[in-house]
């Protein structure tokens, strides 16, 4: 059975969830949140990995997968480090409530 419709269901649920998750964010956090969720969108790394190791061997496709891994990893690693640096700034000083 083609799981397409089930995947649509999953997609719709995740969209609704994404909309509900983010509400009333203090403006201080806008940029870290943007950067943090940008890191998450680097999940496409998983797709790049799968492509690079596809059972059907095709030189061109695998090379693209290889490139995709590099780009996605930059996004993931850079994204998390940058976000962490920003958030550490707020954290290191004083108390917060």
């Amino acid at each position: 059975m083609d799981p397409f419709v089930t995947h649509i269901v999953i997609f719709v649920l995740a969209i609704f969830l994404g909309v509900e998750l983010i509400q009333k964010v203090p403006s201080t956090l806008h940029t870290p949140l943007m950067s943090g969720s940008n890191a998450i969108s680097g999940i496409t790394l998983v797709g790049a990995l799968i492509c690079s190791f596809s059972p059907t061997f095709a030189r061109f496709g695998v090379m693209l997968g290889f490139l995709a891994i590099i780009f996605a990893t930059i996004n993931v690693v850079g994204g998390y480090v940058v976000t962490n640096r920003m958030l550490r700034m707020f954290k290191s000083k004083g108390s917060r409530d």
Partner: protein
Amino acid sequence: MLTFALTQTDWINLAYLLAAICFILGLKMLGKVKTAARGNAVSALGMLIAACVTFFVLNEGEGISLIWIFIAILIGATIGGWGALRVPMTDMPQMVGLLNGFGGMASMLVGIADYSLVASGTYESLPFNKTLAIGLTILIGGVTFTGSLVAFGKLAGLKITPTKPVQFAGGRALIAGLLVAGLLLAVLLIFKPHWGWLIAPMVLIALGLGIVLVIGIGGADMPVVISLLNSYSGIAASMAGFVLRNELLIITGALVGASGIILTRIMCKAMNRSLLNVLFGGVGGAVAPSAGGGAKGTHREASVEDVGIQLEAAGLVIIVPGYGMAVAQAQHAVAELARLLESRGITVKYAIHPVAGRMPGHMNVLLAEANVPYESMLDLDQANAELEQAGVALVIGANDVTNPAARHDKASPIYGMPILDVDKARSAIVIKRSMNTGFAGVENELYFLPNCAMLFGDAKAMAQALVTEMKTE
């Protein structure tokens, strides 16, 4: 007898679910000051799980060898990590834009790669939903890539991407044309899945579309644009998930796509703009020096000594930082000035407008870098409650966010934006280089009020001059 049948794929999918849960919790936690740092860690954990588990999927395939994959990861991690550690805090927005572009590029490549991998002559039997997903991945990924690059260029001040909104005759028609052409090609691919040559023009159109979409937007609106493109890159990842039939990609991409749109809307609201106005208004950028203040009245200039005396006489000084402080990198000098004042018994607080500077939280990040304690930063409401009691409101490189016209002048482009009521302080002192306008390109009524004085000069130089002045007294 007992068919306790969880296959390896099932276990992998359960691990993917765990990763998705980490992303959900992480995103939620990132929205609250208290939990934001932990939220980022939780989400990073999810990414680690996802990546590790994927290697179990791989042992079935026979693509490029694991070695090459590890090399690719190493290259990416080195570039990403090195760049992220090296970039100065003030360049964060363009850094995020760049990273986001890479994510979009990766999704686009995944789409193309998957198409070319079905090379065993089975194109004809590609189901429509797979070709559809491939088309959308390429289009959205491509737009994200070049759009983010242009945004990066504008923020980084690169020559080829002027910060001014570049608008030309037929610009919108071009956008519409490219959009329609791209979608047509995608539809065509559904009906002719074996027409591989369709991919190349699709890629080119997507890349072109990204450029023309963003080039027409002013440099100062780039944070909003990046937030929007971040949402796009999530959708692109989700589409790549449809291509690969991977639930984790679908879920995670959709989460980022949806939350990104919400964040974009929140950011627009804070600037009192609509998203449409940001995308097609052509507002902002390096605003051309306007006619000066003559039209509205006369302003009063103050010397460094005057200002020093006024500051020392004030019981409460509220510092209002703005974009100019960021440009001049004056945060350390300002913080030093504040500490000096405090050592003489004067209370110093900072009034942070939500859209001061060029990215949300810009001022918070800069001041935190200069070790200003979190407690002395007031948000808009707190600041306006205290400004009336302030002896001096010291405006450093801020302009629009202090313009009283926003409160009453319906004709002003910033009418309706909540502002810091600097004009209600006993006296206001404004440090900037000239009478030029700020981001919105409008005259600031504040400068012509009797209780306001101007101290012309670079923000950093002036702050240092004030420090010297007070020390030598």
